[in-house]
């Protein structure tokens, strides 16, 4: 896809890179946050059981 701003192939490549890099950050965050949420849910259930 050509760059929507400048329509140049270089701009398109840079944009693709930006999207790929941002996607990696979001992906890693999703995995880590997902595990933390899972731990939190376990803790919550344990809490409810003990209460």
């Amino acid at each position, binding site marked *: 896809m050509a*760059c*929507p*701003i*400048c329509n140049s192939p*270089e*701009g398109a*490549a*840079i*944009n*693709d*890179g*930006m*999207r*790929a*890099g*941002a996607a*990696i*950050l*979001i*992906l*890693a*965050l999703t*995995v*880590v*946050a997902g*595990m*933390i949420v899972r*731990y939190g849910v376990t*803790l*919550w259930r344990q*809490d*409810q059981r*003990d*209460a």
Partner: protein
Amino acid sequence: MRWTDHKTVGLQYGITALFFLLVGFLLMILMRWQLAWPGQPMPAWITFFVGESNAPGGIMLPEFYNQLVAMHGSVMVFLAVVPLAAGAFANYFVPLQIGAPEMAFPRLNALSYWLYLAAGLIMVASFFVEGGAARSGWTSYAPLAVIETTGQNFWLIGIFLIGVSSALNAINVIVTIAHGRAAGITLAKMPFFVWSQLITALLLLLAFPALQAAAIFQLMDRVAGTSFFLPSGLMVGGVPLQGVAGGGNPLLWQHLFWFLGHPEVYVLILPAMGIVSEVITANARRPLWGYGLMVSAVLFMGGMSMVVWAHHMFLTGMGTTLTGFFQVTTFIISIPSVILISSLVLTLWGGSITFNTPMLFALAFLPMFGIGGLTGLPLGLAASDVTLHDTYYVVGHFHYLVAPGTVFALFAGIYYWFPTITGRSLDEMLGKIHFWGSFVCMNLIFMPMFAIGLMGVNRRLWDAGASYAHAQPTLQWQTHMTYAAFALGLFQIPFVVNLLLARTRREPGTGNREAGTGKREPEANSGSHLPDPGSRRAKLGIWLFIASEVMLFASLFSGYVMLRAGAASWPGPVGGFPWLETVLLVGASAAFGAKRSQLVVSNTLGLTFVIMKVLNDAALLGNGILPSTNLMWACWFTLTGVHAAHVLGGAVFTGWLAGPGFSMAADDRERWLARIDATRKYWLFVDLVWLLIVASFYF
């Protein structure tokens, strides 16, 4: 006094952060002087302190003004407000509110403070090096920051250390809350203040590594001559920049910086919300309205705050896909903010309100935060951001969130808990003078900024826009704002006097002590350990540490992918598969165990891996292959270097376990096995990162 006691660490954080608050304030006063009377000489005594080299004849140089701008923001955010909100209040009051006798890892907790102090001193010391302190704004945008003077290195090192300090503090807060609560204090019964600190800690843990990765990249650009952030054909002063390979991307810095930078806003705001909730419930004599709703909102807000970062980058031409995504997430995050503020206001409904000093600060927080939040909406829309970006409007917006917003909440907390901490009370009259003076002056300083920004005047102008026709009508406002800033300084004197006079007031505090801390005596819970000494704390602690490390390496790999996918061409893979290194590293993990012999073998293999890495690097450098050769080698040297530092850390710790630490194996078997299990997980993580590096560079 025990240096590892959570109250000692909390007080250390608090006192140091207040000192840095003063430093940041004084830097602001100098800036305001310049903005009010640009190009005119300062009084001789100010020039004496600033130095003739920074202000020849008393006239401030633009270069020095830029230092003030960069360091005011950096000091206020990283060294004053966040450490006060998330370091001081969390360390002192989270254990008290959940009935924990101590933080989960007291020694690491103390270390987090000392690292923060070292970072602060390093950053401030940069004023005295040649060229002065950092001067590329608190955002340190590349490529400007890359080609700046030595002070920028100090800034980067300081930021990296603050990241380590934040991670240690965050791990402590999270593990203490998860496994240190007294019987009966379930998650659903935790005070909202504790929830706010929990989410704050999670944000710091997961977001700060991105800025650490960015700081490593920028240090490599500055010290090793790489060009992560330097594009090809960069001109400096009309001349092409020499001696760099180019091909880098300045936007990589912005992505990584704002990945922390935006959650950092919530790191400021969430503890403030927590403190205000305590003060309002106590002084309105009402329980928190919508506790469950508020907890849900703060959880949602914490999660969303991690995926809004690029709304700071709408003008970078990052494309409609990313712009659309971040615009939508930005508007979604305003919903929990409204829920929180509404709940705090509704808590007042039907209450019997006491308008004492902490309550006044807490009540003022609500509209101030409201103004800050609502003025952020036009900035979250890409279309209106085109005109508002980088104007005084933005400065007004975020200062309403931080200065009369968060700082007021912190003052509320200080007044509210001062009797609990010291057993002495503060004078109400002095407190109210402090409040009303600050409230009026803050608005006189920041409200005109919206109008100035809407008139199109850019921020960070050394002369406040005196050389631009459209800024002429705003110049007199700058003078008025400066007078208000001076008055704001004067109105802080009653606060200082109040603190000093409190030494003589021995009577116990007012009703403030009744809430939140449960009338606990400050020393009542010192000197003991959490009830769970063994595996659960260590297990969660190491998982959280690894989570933070995952984000660090994800950020580094994200940079690599951004550059590689965005490059027109990329050099071929590194030749030869690193069999020996791989065998050594996997061997170090496989050999690791609870016996001393296993630890020694693991330590030896780990150290050998590091030695191999050093020898390999030396051979490459000898053959003329440098980090600055091209982007591929820049990425390779950086990623393998950071990884090798982790292997070295693991090997040294394993060596310590085999040596001085081995006595625990006999003394406290359960803790020993927990420690072994935690370290084994670390080794496996280091292995995994190595395999990713091999997959990225050798095929």
